[in-house]
């Protein structure tokens, strides 16, 4: 328990550092939010100053940061300059879309990567092993924006079997309940009206973005599983299990896999972070209405509060995931428990 409290305390400097860096960086990029807002042509100097003052951008930068910090600590992470909605409400509206995409991508990558890595480890130096390891290297090196476009070109343009963009066919109007379309399309009112067509449409829309986003994690998981498994298979206790007369499959499932999983879980947590960064590219390519696209749009518009607030929440989510991993670690490893 003390361990976790300490971890929680560690969050404070991390989040402060992220806020500071983000705050400074967005002010370093050229562009002016006020000009963006009132339009360069109609920029009457008096109006411009008035607007700048209203947004608090006329203050010296350290004062701006101080107010930002004060408001954040009071639970107000800001209001969009462009839309006048609070950053939080905009985030909440988009976050489920990213989570759904990221979750499916990571789930697919794990479901495929784990068994593939295991087989490669068991059949080490076989053709399969070499094949998997070289393809995973290619998968790992693939830039998401390029891979996403190739997928669209092939599956959507050439074969015409998948949609190019969006989360769902706009024929369907899905009431937002959880924000996860795979769940919302199962609401009784939706099913009564359209059957399972909305669900199918949501799945189709998910397919390409989750492949694009999940390719790198898949490669990482497969390679990590292989090396972790190989290490465990060489341990003395595996030999003991075999010497006790346990059959091969039991040795792998009971004695090796669980122990091999521990480093893999750490990797998964790190991958969660890369899923969010990957989402920025993937969502832009596939017009996926999630936080990645949101952040990109807010950067283009120099919407300072949204960038600051958005980045802060995302970092918070990532840091929380890492804490969750610590807890899973704790459950899996008996040595940590004592």
């Amino acid at each position, binding site marked *: 328990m003390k361990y976790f409290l300490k971890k929680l305390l560690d969050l404070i400097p991390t989040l402060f550092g992220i806020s500071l860096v983000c705050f400074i960086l967005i002010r370093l990029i050229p562009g002016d939010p006020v000009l963006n807002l009132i339009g360069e042509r109609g920029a009457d100097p008096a109006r411009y100053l008035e607007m700048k003052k209203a947004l608090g951008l006329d203050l010296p930068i350290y004062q701006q940061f101080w107010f930002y910090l004060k408001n954040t600590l009071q639970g107000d992470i800001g209001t969009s300059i462009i839309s006048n909605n609070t950053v939080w409400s905009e985030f909440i509206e988009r976050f489920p879309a990213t989570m759904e995409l990221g979750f499916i991508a990571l789930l697919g990558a794990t479901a495929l990567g784990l068994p593939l890595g295991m087989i490669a480890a068991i059949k080490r130096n076989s053709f399969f092993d070499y094949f998997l390891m070289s393809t995973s290297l290619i998968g790992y090196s693939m830039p998401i924006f390029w891979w996403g476009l190739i997928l669209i070109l092939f599956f959507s343009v050439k074969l015409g079997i998948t949609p190019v963009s969006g989360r769902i066919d706009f024929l369907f109007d899905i009431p937002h309940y959880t924000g996860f379309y795979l769940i919302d399309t199962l609401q009784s009112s939706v099913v009564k009206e359209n059957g399972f067509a909305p669900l199918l449409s949501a799945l189709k829309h998910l397919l390409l973005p989750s492949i694009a986003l999940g390719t790198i994690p898949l490669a990482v998981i497969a390679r990590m599983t292989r090396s972790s498994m190989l290490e465990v298979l060489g341990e*003395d*206790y595996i*030999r003991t*299990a075999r*010497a*006790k*007369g346990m*059959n091969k499959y039991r040795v792998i499932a*009971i*004695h090796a896999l669980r122990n091999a999983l521990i480093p893999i879980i750490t990797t998964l947590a790190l991958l969660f972070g890369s899923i969010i960064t990957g989402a920025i590219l993937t969502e832009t390519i596939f017009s996926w209405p999630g936080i990645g696209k949101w952040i990109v749009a807010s950067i283009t518009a120099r919407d300072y509060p949204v960038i600051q607030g958005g980045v802060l929440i995302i970092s918070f989510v990532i840091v929380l995931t890492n804490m969750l991993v610590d807890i899973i670690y704790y459950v899996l490893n008996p040595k940590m428990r004592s």
Partner: protein
Amino acid sequence: MLLNVENLNIHFKSDKSSTPIHAVRDLSFKINKGEMLGVVGESGSGKSITNLALLGLLPDSALVTAKNLDFEGKKLLSLNELEWCQVRGREIAMIFQDPMTALNPFLTVEFQIVETIKAHLNLSNKEAINKAIELLNFVGIPSPKDRLKAYPFELSGGMAQRVMIAMAISTDPKLLIADEPTTALDVTIQKQILNLLKVLQEKNNMSIILVTHDLGVVGEYSDRLQVMYAGEVVEEGFTTEILKNPNHPYTEALLASRPGASAHLKRIPKTLLPSISGIVPAFHQRPLGCQFHPRCSYKTHECEQSIIELKDFVRCIHPCNQLSLK
């Protein structure tokens, strides 16, 4: 006769050389029921490889051949994987050098013992747990019931080795291979563990192969002794006989390396801590002729010419007792 090994040869395929490495050469020995066979030799002499071969646990790169490898009439070399699983742990069990790494760190003592029992004996979960408690009690673990829930890292080395032994004997195997069971333990615990093995041998009529570095240990516990060097048996016979009158120069040198133990060995110069110069040749650097000749103080030209055969239980053309007669 329980186990009959005749002309066992083990080769390893190697990436570096085209000819396979000859790790164990022409090894023959027998074990009777209820007998303890001691095996001594430096690291790299092929002891552990032989043991793993007896359990069919060598990697795929190993090629095991033998004129005979019989366990109670079963041809071990012709067993398939499924049949092996019925031999391993059931008929032949093994305990290892380092109990702390040989037990799975993520599973409880209970899980690991019960798993073994249930794999081989037709017992319910509850019966298997009771048997596990009985076994822990037998191997001398205090409050065995509480220990069942322990993880290996919560045990001391001696306790962990007792758990290993309890696990190995849980199915009443006919042969127990103890591969340096006390090397990782301190001396007082060593003695307790070896006494436990002796009890198993005498009371349960279990046959035991005791592999060790420690000549003192075999002297006290084993009936017969086999001295291995560079993949060959260089000398074999009754333990007391060999310890008193070693025939092979290697055995003699080994015995002389014990502090203060060389008094009865006439040929050995009296120094404080005698040692054998040089090291055991690596697999790919083994010499022609007698394997020991580069380190032997009695070597002659003939020793380097051709492979020396085991004759009258010694693999040497100048056995010590013959020399000392001259």
